[in-house]
């Protein structure tokens, strides 16, 4: 079987890979590019552990073919922190103990980032709806919701500081 050559952008970096036609973007990220932050949970779009964004849209990478990434901009959990500096979502997840086993955490963080990018002041209900595509069997969700809410406050503060500095 001949492979498909794909040129794409992942977390801002140009990336090229060769994949099989039936290979999912999740398979490519984990097995070919060694970006193992995205987790392989259900493989059928139910659990959200493999969440990434493609051209800014939150998707399950298990339901995207690797070949579809041609020319697109993909962001994964590996692109969330700024070097050694954790994103506020990551710090607040730690602070609020919003994880136990951790398998669902990358997906929750990517989904929560997608939420905050379009709504930096979400209500509890909005957070719960936005994260409905991510399953967690450890926390009971409350700690996750509180962490996202706290991160939103932090993100708004940082944005406020940035704006004041630009004046």
């Amino acid at each position, binding site marked *: 079987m001949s492979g498909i050559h794909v040129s794409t952008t992942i977390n801002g970096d140009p990336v090229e890979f060769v994949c099989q036609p039936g290979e999912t973007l999740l398979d490519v990220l984990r097995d070919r590019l060694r970006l193992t932050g995205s987790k392989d949970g259900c493989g*059928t779009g139910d659990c959200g552990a493999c969440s990434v964004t493609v051209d800014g849209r939150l998707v399950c990478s*298990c*339901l995207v073919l690797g070949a579809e990434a041609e020319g697109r901009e993909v962001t994964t959990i590996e692109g969330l922190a700024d070097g050694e500096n954790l994103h506020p979502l990551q710090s607040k997840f730690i602070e609020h103990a919003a994880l136990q086993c951790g398998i669902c955490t990358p997906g929750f963080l990517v989904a929560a980032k997608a939420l905050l990018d379009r709504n930096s002041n979400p209500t509890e209900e909005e957070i719960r709806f936005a994260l*409905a595509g991510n399953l967690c069997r450890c926390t009971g969700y409350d700690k996750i919701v509180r962490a996202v809410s706290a991160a939103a406050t932090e993100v708004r503060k940082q944005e406020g500081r940035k704006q004041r500095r630009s004046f």
Partner: protein
Amino acid sequence: MRYAAPTTTREAAALIAKAKGRAFVLAGGTDLLVRMKIGTIEPELVVDIKRIPATQSITKSATGFRIGAGVPTAAMGENNALKKAWPGVVEAANLIGSDQIQNRCTIVGNLCNASPAADSVPALIAAGAKAAIVGPRGRRTVAVDKIVTGPGTTSLKKGEFIEAITLPRPPPRSGDAYLRFIPRTEMDIAVVGAGVSLTLGPNGVVKKARVTLGAVAPTVVLVPAAARAITGTRLEDVALAKLAAACEAACNPIDDMRGTIEYRTEVAGVLARRAAKIAYQRAGGN
């Protein structure tokens, strides 16, 4: 398996027609990739239609809207003109799955997957939507209610696929609504769905209506008797009772873990009544 991402509909139709084994169209992939994963299908060819510009946009014209087959349902919810004209269709499309799914799944996929419980289909049929079909013998346009022939089967011929869904421009004083019942807040398959689209006369009397039900028969059903029950009325209690009775009579559901025959039948009447009231208000009736 082979993967192709043609940039024109003609090329896509030719690829599908020439395939030696089973060929499948890939739009959002939220059903197709699941079926590939669990092994119910083994495609010889997958044709990704998202590189075809005609599948990628929602366009508004004097005659209505055209929604490309590759447009994710989330983009429908982001289109204010579409939401204003057909709020019921957009709500129905936005009920399908999580944000992750919404950002990929399409109404054409929802239609062609041919589930009796597809959420967008009752709303599309109530709205009088049409499917723009491309195939080896050219193009044809068919009413959406003529596409699904049974659970998992469609009237599309070999090599044919749907390039877009068109919605008419709603006449003045029109409104539509879709409601579904599920035992939880979201992320579930409809036990019953009901779509209503109606147009009022200047006096607030229903001039024209279309009523549809999902998940209560092998395909989504259009219920003309239910439309007749409310035509010429202001949705008085008597008219709504007749609407509900007509909907119950149109049900031919299965018994399963989601609901019994009796339960589905009764809920169909209740939901149709509620959807009719919402559509009526949206059309400007009181």
